[in-house]
Every structure is written in structure tokens, then in C-alpha cells.
């Protein structure tokens, strides 16, 4: 299966610059998720790859082929659209067949592939129905089937699950993941849903305003966000951030949050760039890394005792929000603890040193 390269891609709509000098390599057989907020240019990037839009500048290659000026049907890609885009006047079978119309296959091969996809996606019972007679999940399967029959080396998905309900979305997520494991196609998958990204991707490219902010495995993106944008975009509940100043107290480097006088011990933090006293920083603390009411730990970068403002439960998890000066600090707690918690109670929490994320307040980059 081929690899995909974007080289110095520029895309403008009139005078509006969507992508400015974007380069990206999608490796062979990789499941790359393009993740970013609405309007950041994900669909644009995908459509450029598909050939549905023309680049203003730059080059796109698939495998060894430069496809920048090729027609969409000649690029050897298949795409699944957000609205499914099934042909309303064709049956399910007709939809699958039309997917093959650019390939000039012989009859037997067409039959074989249609039957294969129908069976794989369990749509063989509804081959003679029209799309309007299918449920959302079934339509989604047909749309995926129409892409799979092409046996294209590269599969593109543009938010394929966003029209499904939560349960179905989880199911389809698993199925797409399984398909990838079985077929090893190179996949470029666009979404603004971080859970989709975290669960499916082999690598995630986080985009904002047409710029790729970070590209890495889900773990890297989550644990070692390259900048503040990535840190804040990934994670639910979102990462806690404190605006602080670097100081040296008692021979130790700390980040001091002036309003609450909270001091975060940075003496064991592995800085990428040399820290300077007096520099403004932003310290990021993921809610789930807090240890609550656990006196046995003393590797903590900080210890806090703060009043509880409120708490909420999300399925298997619960989050307590502690009052830290003007802001709220989200702390993940055991659901069993939550039932015993009263508003105004003081909660003791500590944070391990090796989980800290420190960002330069001016550039937003990880330090």
C-alpha cells in the first residue's frame, strides 16, 4: 500500500489562505487521523488529496506517482463522505457497482468484489433496497462498502461517523478499526472528535488554522503535547492550566501561581529548553493524574488542599472541581468517593512530577 506525501501545499480561496506551506507524510498502511477544530482546513486537505479541489501551490504524491494534476478518478483513492453521499436512485448494489465504474473491470471481477464487500459489511440482505430505505448505520456501511470495492491503496474518510448516534458510533469505530487491521490500507481519516482520534489512529495530526500543530501517536499527543493548543484540545475534561512564573526558592525551581500562591515543584522536570527565572509559563495538569487523599505519596510536584465546588459523574468516571482562586481545578476521582463528597469539603490532592507539562507562555511551546 502506498504512502502519501503532501509537499509544501498552499491553498487559497480567493484571498483567503486556508493552508500555507503544509507538508505531511502519511506512511504506508498507516491510520492517520487529522484532528482539529471546525474550520481548520481538514476537509480542504482531504479534498486536495482526493483531487476534488486544486492546489494553489505544492505537490501531492501517492506512492511514486505525482498526482497533483490527475483527475480524482485516476488517483487510486476511495473516499467515504460525511453525508454518505449514496446515489439516491440506485439500489445498494447499484451504488457498489457504480463505485467500480472508473476501473474497467470484467464482469466476473465486479460480481466477486460486490459480493465480497456485501458480505464483509453485512449488507448482503439489503442489496436491492434504495438508500432511503436504510437506517443511518446501514447507509454508513454501504458508503464504506462502495469505497472498499475499489481495492484502493488509500482510503479517505471525512467525518464518517458524525451523523450517527453515540452507540452506533462506538460500534462503527470498532468495525473501521477491524477493517484496517484486516486490509492494511493507508487511511486518512478526518474528524473533530478526539475520542475517535485516540481510539482509531496509529498516528494523529492535530491541526489548527491550517497548520499542523503536532503529529504523533495517540500516546505522544496525549502525554507530550507539543504546545498549549494540542494540550488544551485533547482530553476530556480538558487539562488544567495555571499561568505561573518560574522562580527559584530554596535552590529548587518552582512555578509560582501568583493569585493562589500555589507552587509547583519543577526540580525534576526534564526541560527541553533551558528555563529562565522570571519567565512566564503555563503549567498543564491532567485531571486524571492527580492522586487524591493519598498521604503515602511524596513524589508530588505539589500538594493542595482545596474546597470542592461541585462534582460530576460521567459513566465510569467522576470529576471533582476544586476552587483554586479564580479558577476551577478539575480532578478525576473514584466514583465511589464522589457519593461521600460534600460541597465545601476540603480535598487533598497531589500531582506526580513526571506528568507535568510546562509551556512557554509567550510561544505556547512545550518546555
Amino acid at each position, binding site marked *: 500500500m502506498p504512502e502519501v506525501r503532501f509537499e509544501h501545499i498552499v491553498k487559497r480561496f480567493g484571498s483567503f489562505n486556508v493552508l500555507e506551506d503544509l507538508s505531511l507524510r502519511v506512511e504506508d498502511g498507516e491510520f492517520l487521523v487529522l484532528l482539529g477544530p471546525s474550520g481548520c482546513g481538514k476537509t480542504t486537505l482531504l*479534498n486536495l488529496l*482526493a*483531487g*476534488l479541489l486544486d492546489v494553489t501551490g505544492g505537490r501531492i504524491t501517492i506512492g511514486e506517482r505525482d498526482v497533483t494534476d490527475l*483527475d*480524482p*478518478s*485516476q488517483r487510486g*483513492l*476511495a*473516499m467515504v*463522505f*460525511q*453525508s*454518505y*453521499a*449514496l*446515489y*439516491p*436512485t*440506485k439500489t445498494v448494489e447499484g451504488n457498489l457497482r*457504480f*463505485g*467500480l*465504474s*472508473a476501473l474497467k473491470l470484467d464482469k466476473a471481477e465486479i460480481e466477486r468484489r460486490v459480493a465480497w464487500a456485501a458480505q464483509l459489511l453485512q449488507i448482503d440482505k439489503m442489496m436491492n433496497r434504495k*438508500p*432511503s430505505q436504510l437506517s443511518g448505520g446501514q447507509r454508513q456501511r454501504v458508503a464504506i462498502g*462502495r469505497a472498499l470495492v475499489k481495492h484502493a491503496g488509500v482510503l479517505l474518510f471525512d467525518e464518517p461517523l458524525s451523523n450517527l448516534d453515540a452507540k452506533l458510533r462506538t460500534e462503527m469505530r470498532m468495525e473501521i478499526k477491524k477493517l484496517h487491521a484486516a486490509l492494511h490500507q493507508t487511511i486518512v481519516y478526518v474528524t473533530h472528535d478526539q475520542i475517535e482520534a485516540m481510539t482509531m489512529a496509529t498516528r494523529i495530526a492535530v491541526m489548527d488554522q491550517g497548520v499542523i500543530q503536532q503529529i504523533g501517536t495517540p500516546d505522544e499527543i496525549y502525554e507530550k503535547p507539543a504546545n498549549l493548543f494540542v494540550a488544551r484540545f485533547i482530553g476530556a475534561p480538558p487539562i488544567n492550566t495555571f499561568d505561573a512564573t518560574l522562580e527559584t526558592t530554596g535552590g529548587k525551581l518552582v512555578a509560582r501561581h501568583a493569585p493562589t500562591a500555589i507552587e509547583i515543584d519543577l526540580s525534576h522536570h526534564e526541560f527541553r529548553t533551558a528555563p529562565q527565572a522570571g519567565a512566564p509559563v503555563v503549567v498543564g495538569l491532567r485531571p486524571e493524574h492527580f492522586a487524591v487523599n493519598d498521604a503515602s505519596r511524596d513524589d508530588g510536584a505539589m500538594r493542595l488542599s482545596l474546597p470542592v465546588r461541585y462534582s460530576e459523574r460521567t459513566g465510569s468516571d467522576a470529576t471533582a472541581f476544586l476552587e483554586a482562586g479564580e479558577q476551577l481545578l478539575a480532578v478525576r476521582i473514584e466514583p465511589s468517593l464522589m457519593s461521600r463528597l460534600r460541597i465545601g469539603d476540603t480535598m487533598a490532592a497531589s500531582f506526580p512530577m513526571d506528568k507535568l507539562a510546562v509551556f512557554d507562555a509567550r510561544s505556547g511551546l512545550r518546555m
Partner: protein
Amino acid sequence: MTALSETRAQPGRAAIVIPRRRPRIKGSSIAIFVFLTMVSLFVAIPLYVVIVTSFKPIGEITLGQIFNLPVQWTVQPWMKAWNEMCTGLACDGIKQGFFNSVAILFPSLVLSIAIASVTGYALALWNVRWADGFLFVLFICAFVPFQIIMIPLIIVVASLGIFGTVWAIALVHAVLSMPLLTLIFRNFYKDIPRELINAAIMDSGSFWKIFWEIVLPMSGNIMVVVLILMITTVWNDYLVGLTFGGISTKPMTVILANSVITSRGEAIYNVNMAAALLTAVPPLVVYFALGRFFVQGITSGAIKG
């Protein structure tokens, strides 16, 4: 919870019946009603006269009581109009005109709809260079009266060597209707979801294949609208048929006019009226047959996938 407490509260409230407000007829609806009645009378009264006259023997007509129902109903005038009415020197009725009109109608429909739908499809869904300029020109053309370009068109058609044939009339109809029909088709196709066309472009990429297999089958509604529009226009046309048709290809309207205007001696009103009705019937039949879809067609814009 709420549902429960409400059910319990029900018996106490059952006695209170909230009176439904009677719909009142507003002043503006009365005005509209009067206006519509006048408009329909304006059409209905002459139509009534034409119909009753066509069923009267000539003796009753000379009495001059045009609003009376026939005393003695007869279909004789209709038979005469169809079979024996005189146009110029020939007295074959207007049936030849009917067949000519049919012969003109089909090529006109096929040609005009084919040209306009493909042009509208290209303009709406493909990247056509200068599409906006082209649309603007089409829009302007829709307002140019036929009479202005008639003479040049005759020269063009004559130079093609088809002057006086049904093809000349069909071609002229196609050209004249193209601006309006193209705009209609373009606006309809503009509402096809972009992703659907993108999917087709990735799947096939062929302009014609996408048109035939995806876009045309979705065009049912708009086709009905355009069909009715064109059948009415072509069938009721007089000027194009008169100027571009040869002796043997004159449409029904032209033959009707010739018969009514040139009939020698006394005017045979009942036959003339029957002939006029015979000429007017086909578009009516089409309208009644397809009218339901017509309303559907103009109200349902977008095609839902």
C-alpha cells in the same frame, strides 16, 4: 413525573371546556376571493360560450342567444372540424394540423430538453470557465423577443438547409427556450448535494456517465415541470410554426387560424369553435395527467439523498 401528576389533575379540570376559536374570514381574504372569482369568470364565460356553440346546429346559432344551452345537442361540428374543414383550397379538416403538431412536438421536446438539461448540469455541477458570464448572457437572452431575431434566424435555418421542415421548427423552439430552460435546470441541479457529485466524480469521473446514471434519474420532478412548460409552449405556438414551417408542416394553430380567417361566405361558428377546442385540448390533457407532479416539481427544490 409530570405526566403522572397531570393525569391525576384531569378530573377536576374536565368541566372547563376551552372554546375553540372560530376561524374568521378576514377582509383581505374576501378581497382575494372576489378577485379570483372575477379572474375565473373572465376565462370561464368565453370558454362556456365556445363549448356550447360547438355543440349547436348552425340553425340555433343564428338566433344569437349565445348563452343558451343547445336545444339539440350535436357532435356534427366536431366531426366537420376534424375531417372536412377547409383551409385555403383543401378541405381535409384540421386533423392534418394535429398530426403536424405532434410531429413538431416530439423533436422540439427532445431537442430543447436535451440541450438545456445538459447545459444546466454542466453549469451547476462542473467547473465551467466563465460560467457566471455565460449565465448572465443566458439571462439577458431570456428577455429578447422572438420577433427581433426572427429574420436572422430564418436566414440561419435556411442556410442549414432545413427550412420548411419540422426540424427547423424544433430547432428554433430549442434555441428560443434554451435560456429559460437552462436556468431552470441549473437552479434545480445546484441543489444536488456537493458531496454526492464529489462521490460520483471520484467513482467514475465521466461527465456523461454521471449525467446518465446519477443526475438524470434524479431529475424526475423538474422534467415534469419542463415537459408541461414546453408542451404548452410548442403546441400553442403560432409564429414559429407559421414562419419556419413549410406547406405540409404547418402546426394545428396555423391551420386553425387559416381556416377561421379565410373561410368563404358565412362564418361556420360551430365548426370553428369545435376546431378551436380540438386545438386546445392536448395541452389540457397533459396538464391534467401531470398536474399533480407539476406542483410537486416546482415546490420540491432540493433532492434529499
